[in-house]
């Protein structure tokens, strides 16, 4: 089944024909040119495909594109319309990432956390990124950067 869906993507209204079996991650990357969500595990485990739907981080590898009709989707590209966010500045300052593959997911997860609770403690930060696997850093510089910002 094919259907034209309309949804908000990074603040802009987009219309696109999708088939009901297309995965959101693939449509965002391959058809709409947004490369921040990446395919790591393709089964919900790693968090590299994270995007926000209606303000909440979700795994775009486990969502059908057709499900986002009339919803609001934000990718990493969409949160930096006005340049880097303070959180991103802090990640830069702490040299938090190496290869950067996990970065979009980590940034979205911690952005969601700080929007909910700007004074999160270390435990809460760890919990927020528990589903974002990083193969390079051992997490410490990621956590330090967030702590630095909330303290």
């Amino acid at each position, binding site marked *: *089944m094919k*259907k034209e869906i309309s949804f908000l993507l990074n603040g802009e209204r987009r219309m696109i024909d999708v*088939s*009901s*079996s*297309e*995965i959101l991650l*693939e449509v965002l990357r391959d058809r709409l040119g947004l490369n921040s969500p990446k395919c790591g595990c*393709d*089964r*919900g*485990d790693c*968090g590299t495909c*994270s995007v926000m739907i209606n303000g*909440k*981080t*979700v*795994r775009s*590898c*486990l*969502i*059908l594109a*057709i*499900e986002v*009709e009339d919803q609001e989707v934000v990718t990493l590209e969409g949160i930096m319309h006005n340049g880097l966010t303070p959180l991103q500045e802090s990640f830069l300052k702490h040299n938090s990432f190496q290869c950067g593959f996990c970065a979009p*997911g980590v940034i979205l*997860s911690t952005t*969601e*956390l700080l929007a909910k609770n700007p004074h999160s403690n270390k435990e809460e930060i*760890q*919990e*927020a990124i*528990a*589903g*974002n696997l990083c193969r390079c850093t051992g997490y410490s510089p990621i956590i330090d950067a967030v702590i630095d910002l909330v303290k």
Partner: protein
Amino acid sequence: MAIENQFDYVKVKNLDEVFGVFQHYKNPVILSGGTDVVEFLKSGTLQPDVVIDIKGLDFLKDIRLGNNILWIGAGVTFNELIESEIINEHFPIIAEMSKTVASVGIRNRATMVGNICSAVPCTDSGPILSVYKASVITVGMLGERKIPIEQWFVSSRKTALAKHEIVKGISIQLPDKKHAGCFTKLKRYNGEDLAQVNLAILAFEDYSFRISFGSVAPTPVRAMRIERLINRMKLVPELMEKAQQLVEDDIAPITDIRATKEYRMHMAKIMLERGLNAALNRLNSGGPAYGKSVI
């Protein structure tokens, strides 16, 4: 991975539409948060001719408490449970359990009802609903059914849901006696993982207990022999040891990719002891705070 099978997609606006779609197709699948369904569509385990998205059914999104009965609608996600005042005040072990499910990004979509519909042996919701003696409310064209939780789980991935029915929600009677509880989950590492063993305990002021293990049998199991042994007794070390012995009669773990059966059995006994102690400490207003792991 792309989904190879083709299917129609309907986002329903009311129950009549659900039943209408049921009539028109041979092999419908309900889609809620999709954290299991989409995985199964990709692997080909599910090959529906139609996917019925129920996320537009706003009346399934309620968490409410009235007449001491808790209602958790089918659309309620684990994160909504964690953030609910009703849950934190009256059913803190439901929040304690929900925090151990997957990661924030999964919990923003995954529902408790979807979890018990998938009914895998390691379901984290199962043991909790079992100690609360919850009921699952289903609805079909012929009306509603109220299914006690011990009849809901039939075997691994099999439930009492009938063809052309959907689940509306879960209802739980708030126990009238003062009580406290503990949910503990053994994982391979801190952070998101499925359970190797999970365990829910309720302890009541008259020192009676309800105990349910998960991941150690095809469905959650109430540890009835242990409950009978320790009910209304003082949990002195000798009795605790006897209770731990009985774990071997109450559960039947297997070896799989996450743990051997011997390890599961050994840890189940340790979890029983620590879980009972934590529940009793909470009952008597001491710690550990809900959400603090006891293993």
